[in-house]
């Protein structure tokens, strides 16, 4: 049985260990915030998988209304795809700058990422308006209309959420509240941002390009 001295020593070691323990690092040695985000992204894969599967299942089965070939504006959506790819690059450059303690550069790259995302959303608003006003395609027109608007609308909502998240980080940087210790938090936002990019990679090919 250990004596009081041994207990005291254990208590000191325990306190020292506790002081160095980061509550964000779990028993696996991984950052809980990153693990949580990867779990969320995995579940979001299945969400978008269901919507893409539904779109493909309904493809060519509409009873009327405009067809995808009649309404899709491939040059515009290609430009939107390039915008999201560019924003993925600016996102990793923001992280790289943050890690190197170049806060101003990091804030600018985050701002560029958010603006590219905003531009993407505005392109989508223009596309939706064109479909509704020019072609009469709405959520209720046909199977194509409902499955297309639900799929791309949810993606657009994801992008909008990402833009807001990035602008919050830009705001914190402007108030001097961003530093390299926030790396993992910004990285988690970046994971989300890249995810909306890869979902668009899938949507762009499967929905817009495959005839």
């Amino acid at each position, binding site marked *: 049985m250990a004596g009081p001295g041994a207990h005291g020593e254990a208590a000191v070691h325990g306190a020292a260990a506790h002081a160095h323990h980061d509550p964000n690092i779990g028993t696996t040695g991984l950052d809980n915030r990153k693990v949580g985000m990867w779990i969320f992204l*995995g579940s979001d894969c299945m969400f978008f998988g269901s919507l893409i*599967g539904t779109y493909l299942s309904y493809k060519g089965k509409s009873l009327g209304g405009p067809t995808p070939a009649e309404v899709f504006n491939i040059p515009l959506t290609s430009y939107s795809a390039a915008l999201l790819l560019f924003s993925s690059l600016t996102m990793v450059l923001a992280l*790289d700058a943050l890690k190197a303690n170049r806060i101003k550069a990091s804030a600018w790259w985050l701002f560029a990422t958010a603006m590219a995302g905003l531009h993407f959303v505005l392109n989508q608003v223009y596309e939706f308006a064109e479909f509704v006003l020019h072609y009469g395609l709405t959520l209720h027109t046909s199977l194509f209309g409902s499955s297309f608007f639900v799929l791309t609308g949810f993606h657009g909502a994801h992008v909008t959420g990402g833009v807001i998240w990035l602008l919050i980080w830009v705001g914190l940087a402007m108030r001097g509240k961003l530093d390299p210790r926030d790396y993992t938090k910004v990285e988690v936002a970046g994971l989300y941002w890249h995810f909306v990019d890869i979902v668009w990679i899938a949507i762009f090919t499967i929905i817009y390009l495959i005839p």
Partner: protein
Amino acid sequence: MAHDPHAAVAHPPDAPAPAHGGGHATVKTYVNVAVILVVITAIEVATLYVPGIPKALLVISLLLMSAAKFVLVVGFFMHLRYDHNIMRSLFIGPLILAICIIVALMALFSAFILLPR
């Protein structure tokens, strides 16, 4: 604001993942990947305008190019190439399930693109 003390530890570029999963590529690698992504996207769009291309070949080539872009973004920009196996499993497992959902829904509705009806 609570800060992450682990984040302040710098890791050498292209280094293996640290215990908490935070490896990364170099800026040069990021730019190269972005250029490759844009080139693949341009080829994808150009493929649409190739006259007389068989539909099956068009669909397969578009899906392969899309998959290549997907892997590049996830591997390099999302750092999964450098991350812990647990992170990879958390994403790749549900991704496989998502693909199964798409295939299952298409089978339910007899909607396979390449197979004759």
